[in-house]
């Protein structure tokens, strides 16, 4: 006589987890093989019948078996093994393994964790950015880890009680600059967030990085708003030209082009601006918030450069497209004012720190130097991406006068 495998459930009922023991025991026998069930729970026979019916297993109950012989004989059904027939691994969790991150993850992998076993028949998701060549950067994981470690709490990272002693009109200038920063940081939040929702989740590290990038911008918006309202009750001015410029960023549908314009050129220029404010603002709160924001922005620029460098290496046609995007944006903004007078004047005043003639002259010189610094930075980054020096110079000159 062949020994039938057995499972002892003791007094544990199917209403309190005994089904886990049953499932485990059934997985250890082949489909079509029997299993004897022992147990003393009062309602076991009733529940076994119902459970087996729902799971597709055949069952034969032995009345009076309780306590002595088996209470039932279950024959394992093929339902569970059938469910996982045709399932496939969605790459591997470790991005460094061959095949870990695949070039074109199928839409049916959907939201599955990378490396998960995906049931056949899963619904196809619409993630239009599903090409590794377009979105991936090997540096994304390290940049994400860096970003996660560098998160700061606006409530404690900034000494909001530090004294503000400059004249009221300098404070007006600070409010205007902060208003300008909030507007720009809002664009810098929306652009990665909108692409984030289109990227196949298989590229987990890129998703994580863009999410934390959006969170960085959320904090910057908070800090700049809070700084603006530290003394004043109202924000400053928002101009048509400024919004026109940012609108072209939000309307760029191509991932590579959008991040080229936003991160490499826009946030790159912003880095110079934030360091400028850190060095020139007369109050410690402005200096602090700009320093914290600049550290985050540097990471954003690094990701933009990393994935574009990779993408350009794989696609020779990308460089002329990037150049054309800058030209197109320049043409679109040809009839706008560029950087508004209010922001320019506010920067001069903020850098001057007073109405003294000497200070004003120096403040103006510093803003001119800032523009040169921004141009130098853009050209360097363009050259890092492989643009020849003359092309980099020409493209940098075409960048929006609005900075971002």
């Amino acid at each position, binding site marked *: 006589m062949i020994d039938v495998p057995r499972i002892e459930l003791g007094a544990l009922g199917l209403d309190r987890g005994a089904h886990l023991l049953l499932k485990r025991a059934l997985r250890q026998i082949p489909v079509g093989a029997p299993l004897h069930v022992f147990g003393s729970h009062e309602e076991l026979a009733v529940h076994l019948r119902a459970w087996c019916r729902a799971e*597709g297993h055949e069952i034969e109950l032995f009345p009076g078996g309780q306590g002595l012989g088996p209470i039932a004989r279950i024959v394992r059904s093929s339902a569970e093994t059938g469910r996982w027939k045709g399932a496939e691994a969605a790459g591997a969790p470790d991005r460094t393994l061959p095949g870990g991150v695949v070039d074109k993850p199928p839409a049916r992998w959907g939201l599955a964790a990378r490396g998960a076993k995906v049931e056949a028949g899963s619904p196809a998701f619409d993630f239009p950015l599903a090409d590794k060549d377009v979105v991936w950067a090997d540096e994304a994981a390290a940049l994400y880890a860096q970003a996660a470690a560098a998160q700061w709490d606006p409530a404690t990272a900034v000494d909001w009680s530090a004294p503000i002693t400059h004249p009221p009109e300098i404070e007006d200038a600070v409010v205007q600059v902060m208003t300008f920063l909030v507007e720009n940081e809002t664009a810098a939040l929306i652009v990665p967030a909108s692409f984030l929702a289109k990227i196949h989740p298989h590229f987990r590290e890129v998703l994580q990085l863009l999410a934390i990038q959006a969170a960085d911008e959320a904090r910057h918006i908070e800090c700049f708003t809070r700084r603006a309202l530290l003394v004043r009750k109202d924000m400053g001015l928002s101009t048509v030209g400024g919004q026109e410029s940012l609108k072209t960023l939000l309307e760029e549908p191509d991932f590579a082009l959008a991040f080229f314009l936003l991160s490499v050129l826009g946030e790159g220029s912003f880095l110079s601006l934030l360091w400028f404010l850190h060095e020139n603002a007369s109050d410690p709160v402005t200096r602090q918030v700009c320093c914290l924001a600049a550290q985050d922005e540097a990471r954003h620029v690094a990701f933009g450069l990393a994935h574009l460098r990779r993408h350009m290496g794989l696609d020779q046609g990308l460089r002329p497209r990037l150049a054309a995007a800058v030209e197109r944006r320049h043409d679109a903004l040809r009839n706008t004012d560029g950087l508004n007078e209010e922001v320019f004047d506010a920067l001069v005043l903020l850098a001057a720190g007073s109405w003294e003639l000497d200070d004003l002259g120096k403040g103006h010189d510093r803003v001119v130097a800032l523009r040169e610094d921004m141009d130098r930075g853009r050209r360097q980054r363009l050259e890092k991406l492989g643009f020849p020096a003359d092309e980099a110079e020409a493209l940098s000159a075409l960048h929006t006068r609005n900075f971002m």
Partner: protein
Amino acid sequence: MDTLILGAVAYDPKVVTIWEGFKQHFVERELPFDFVLYSNYERQVEGQLAGEVHVAWNSPLAWIEAERAARARGRKAAALAMRDTDRDLTSVVVVRADAPIRTLSDLARTTVAVGASDSPQATLIPLLAIAEAGLKPGADFRVLGHDLLVGKHGDHIGGEREAARALIAGKADAACMIDGNHLAFTREGTLPAGSTRILAQTAPYDHCNFTVLEGVPAPQLIRFTELLLAMSYDDPSVRALLDMEGLKRWLPGRVDGYAQLNRAVDLFGTLDAWLMRAGRE
């Protein structure tokens, strides 16, 4: 091949999804197929008798209605197929753990909570068990009904859950439900662990079937049955539909599992008025 038309009762919004899915499956396999949804089983049985549908996805009570009404017209009904989960169900009569009730006859002068008045599993079959133990429902004990969605023959779980809650709340001394719902209610806590005990379990009975009346074009029925029985849980394109309809595989129909319900219907006169009306139409 003419279109095979199936009738189903819309007891839940998912019924639309289920039959749209099946329709696509059948049409892709060269069976012209469509379906009609009814709001209750009586309307569906009447529709089938009037020739509106070729096949009806019937509850056990609707099967009996169809079978008896067809017989009264000199016609024959047959069960084509059923789910694996339609076979060998049982119902249970549950009492509170500390109740002095030990046998069904102890239910005399008590209140027994049941589901909808037309629910085979939560009302008719368990009441038959109590009646066959010698107690007359409504005379020897009070029946506390939970008429949720009458006409849908207890397809909706709500009536049974209300019966279970009535038992726990002390509004009833016993509650009737299908075995699977007893497991579900104890797991979800509607019946807290240790608070109740199963007083009795009915003999096994069968549930739904695809009912057909004689005279329906045979090639379509043969193809329909072939396609049903060939549906495999291994196939991801049908697995979601099978999950929604609550089965792992379709089995050939059988009608010997309706004996208890036939006796209940006879004893309680459940269908007398409807059969009389249906007979006149």
